[in-house]
């Protein structure tokens, strides 16, 4: 009997994250503020990255200083009052709190509330914390207290506040909290599973290529071959049973290997320090690399959070279809077949797993073995067409966003227009330079803002037959009229929250479009050499064999 694949996440990863950790993070991420969340999406993402990379060392030191300063600044509620009596944790709210506290006659001399930052002059070197950093530090403290308990953390803080406020005391507090957090995460966020996966996949690639695993060694064939081998090896654990899971693992591995190689190249000319020699990795550096990778991967999550979620730009089924493409990021162009396989055969495998769970009965279709023998519901031609349709729909949504931005007099509207219709750029540039004639593009306007305002106005009011900007607006309007989703109502177009949502959604949708376009170009290249149906047929044979090895022989 095969071990069941338990999909621990929406994307199909088998995860060992505890319910407790998930609930703590969800509680902090969902903490209520004023008409929405207490922390914005960016802060929540930073918190997740910090925890995932275990890079909380420096932030905890910053937190120590901020807590000590907050205690001096705040009134009778102490640091608790400074961090939590404001309803929404924003840079502006912290700036206001700091400036107001510092303006009181009783304000401590060693703390200076400057325009952009708090300058803390405890014994030793002055320590600076920007107001924009404070929401994240507040979320981190919220997480620590929610996870570890108020009594424990408050006890540590009391010790910090009762002693000398020098660098040593701050570091000691940060180290203590770091140890507590480490112990907590050791239990609730085990990383051994992924360390094991990393070594298994790298070992496979090294064996296959005869050299050190590198990003360039990862292609569609490698991914499928790896998965087939794991399916055939019945003694293997359950780390790599689902193809979709394996695909995501390879996306992450490719990204990690590529970033590591880039880093090596940059550092090649620099002297190698003792930490590098000892094989130590700076968690802060990991976190920064993760931030770059995650900024693209989290677009779907960001679209579902304020302020973007005022507009329903992506519905549930579109989101499901986009999930792997977005997770792949740059790899969408390199591993197009892997994405297609995960879409088609991943769903097929999920049905088989469900049948196995139901006691080897697969409903009206018969046994698990019969299901294994069947081809997936969706073939590559259909899946590619679905991606094509999705790409066109997202472009239409972006045009609808362009309409919203035009109506709000927002120059960002032209950015969308340039991206979707690059052919209009010369004509529009000419309009900026000379309102009367389409002239050369090498003249710089004297008052660009004024010119843009004029263009925005003529886009809405002008004749679409003669003015390029008005024609662009007409296309945007037509696209908007066809979108029948929440937030896309004409009477709400000029609401500030709708404009804000459009501004926030556009760059996220652009990432989706770019990834989809890269995937479709790569698939087109591939299927121009070997037709999609032939690839699908061959894959059916290979997947059937692998799935049979996993779940039983086909009939």
């Amino acid at each position, binding site marked *: 009997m095969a071990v069941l694949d338990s999909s621990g*996440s*929406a994307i199909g990863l088998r995860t060992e*994250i505890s319910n407790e950790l*998930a*609930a*703590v*993070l*969800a*509680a902090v991420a969902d*903490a*209520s503020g004023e008409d929405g969340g*207490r922390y914005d999406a960016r802060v929540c993402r930073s918190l*997740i*990255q910090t*925890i*995932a*990379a275990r890079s909380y060392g420096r932030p905890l030191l910053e937190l120590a200083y901020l807590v000590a300063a907050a205690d001096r600044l705040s009134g009778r509620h*102490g640091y*608790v009052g400074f*961090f939590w*009596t404001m*309803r929404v944790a924003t840079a502006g709210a912290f700036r206001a709190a700091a400036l107001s506290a510092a303006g009181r006659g009783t304000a401590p001399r060693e703390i200076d509330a400057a325009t952009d930052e708090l300058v803390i002059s405890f014994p030793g070197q002055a320590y600076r914390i920007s107001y924009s950093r404070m929401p994240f530090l*507040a979320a981190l403290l*919220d997480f620590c*207290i*929610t996870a570890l308990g*108020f009594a424990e953390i*408050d006890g540590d803080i009391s010790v910090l506040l009762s002693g000398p406020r020098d660098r040593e005391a701050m570091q000691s507090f940060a180290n203590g909290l770091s140890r507590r957090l480490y112990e907590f995460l050791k239990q609730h*966020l085990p*990383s051994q599973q*992924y*360390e*094991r*996966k*990393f*070594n*298994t996949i*790298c*070992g496979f690639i*090294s*064996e296959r290529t005869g050299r*050190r*695993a590198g990003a360039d060694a990862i292609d569609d064939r490698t991914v499928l071959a790896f998965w087939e*081998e794991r399916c055939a*090896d019945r003694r*293997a654990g359950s780390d790599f049973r689902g193809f979709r899971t394996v695909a995501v*693992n390879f996306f992450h591995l490719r990204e*990690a290997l590529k*970033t590591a190689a880039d880093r*090596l190249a940059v550092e090649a000319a620099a002297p190698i320090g003792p930490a590098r020699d000892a094989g130590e*990795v700076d968690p802060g*550096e*990991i976190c920064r*690399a993760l931030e770059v*990778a*995650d900024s693209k*991967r*989290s677009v779907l*999550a960001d679209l*579902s959070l304020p302020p973007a979620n005022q507009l329903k730009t992506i519905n549930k089924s579109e989101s499901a279809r986009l999930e792997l493409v977005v997770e792949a990021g740059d790899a969408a162009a390199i591993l197009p077949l892997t994405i297609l396989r995960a879409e088609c055969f991943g769903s097929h495998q999920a049905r088989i797993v469900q049948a196995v769970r139901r006691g080897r009965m697969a409903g009206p279709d018969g046994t698990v073995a019969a299901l294994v023998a069947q081809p997936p519901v969706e073939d590559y031609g259909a899946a590619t067409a679905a991606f094509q349709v999705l790409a066109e729909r997202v472009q239409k949504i972006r045009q609808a966003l362009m309409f919203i931005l035009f109506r709000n007099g927002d120059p960002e509207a032209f950015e969308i227009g340039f991206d979707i219709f690059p052919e209009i750029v010369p004509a529009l540039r000419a309009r900026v330079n000379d309102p009367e004639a389409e002239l050369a593009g090498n003249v710089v306007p004297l008052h660009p803002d004024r010119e843009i305002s004029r263009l925005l106005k003529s886009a809405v009011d002008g004749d679409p037959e003669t003015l390029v900007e008005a024609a662009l607006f007409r296309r945007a309007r037509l696209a908007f009229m066809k979108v029948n989703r929440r937030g896309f109502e004409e009477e709400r177009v000029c609401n500030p929250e709708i404009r804000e949502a459009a501004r926030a959604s556009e760059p996220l949708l652009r990432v989706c479009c770019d990834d989809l376009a890269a995937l479709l170009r790569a698939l087109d290249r591939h299927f121009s050499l070997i037709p999609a149906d032939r690839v699908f047929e061959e894959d059916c044979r290979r997947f059937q064999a692998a799935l049979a090895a996993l779940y039983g022989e086909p009939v």
Partner: protein
Amino acid sequence: MTETRSPDTDPFAEALFVASSLSCDLRHRLLRPAREADPGRIAFSEAAQCMADPGSPVGRQVLEAARRRPEIGSALAMLAQRFALADMPAVAAASDGTYAIRQAGDFLMRVEQSLQIGGPAYLVIQRAVEGTMPRLVVGIPEAGSPVMHVLPESEDGTIQLLLEAEAALLQLLRDPDCRFLLA
């Protein structure tokens, strides 16, 4: 197949792969209603919000969670000390013989019985001098879970709360070892 560390792998790549995978897991866990696994869980910031405005939707949600989960109640009671306008100690020195009265600083808290058989008890809180009135009363027994009650707003220095005759808060008032906070 080998599953041991390849001597040739880059520790940076490994650390980034692990962090990337964990971050992905966490992100996707958060896309699901993660609180369903632990519905009573509240963020500390919400507990602090509750102290600032216990009558708000968040405040009531937190107090409800505290009723279900003793550990939240205890954390809340501890937090209440920071927000307390009055701390009425366990000692009955400032109480009358039946412990129907507690007094601390400017605040007086008393219980009055209804004239009706089976009627409610009236908890009356008065402040002798003009100032902020509390929005939450917390009873902290020597052993057991704290009991909290949202207080109605008052503009004239007197708050009156109707309680079941056997309400947990009243039982705590009769307990000389119970301490009370007005926050």
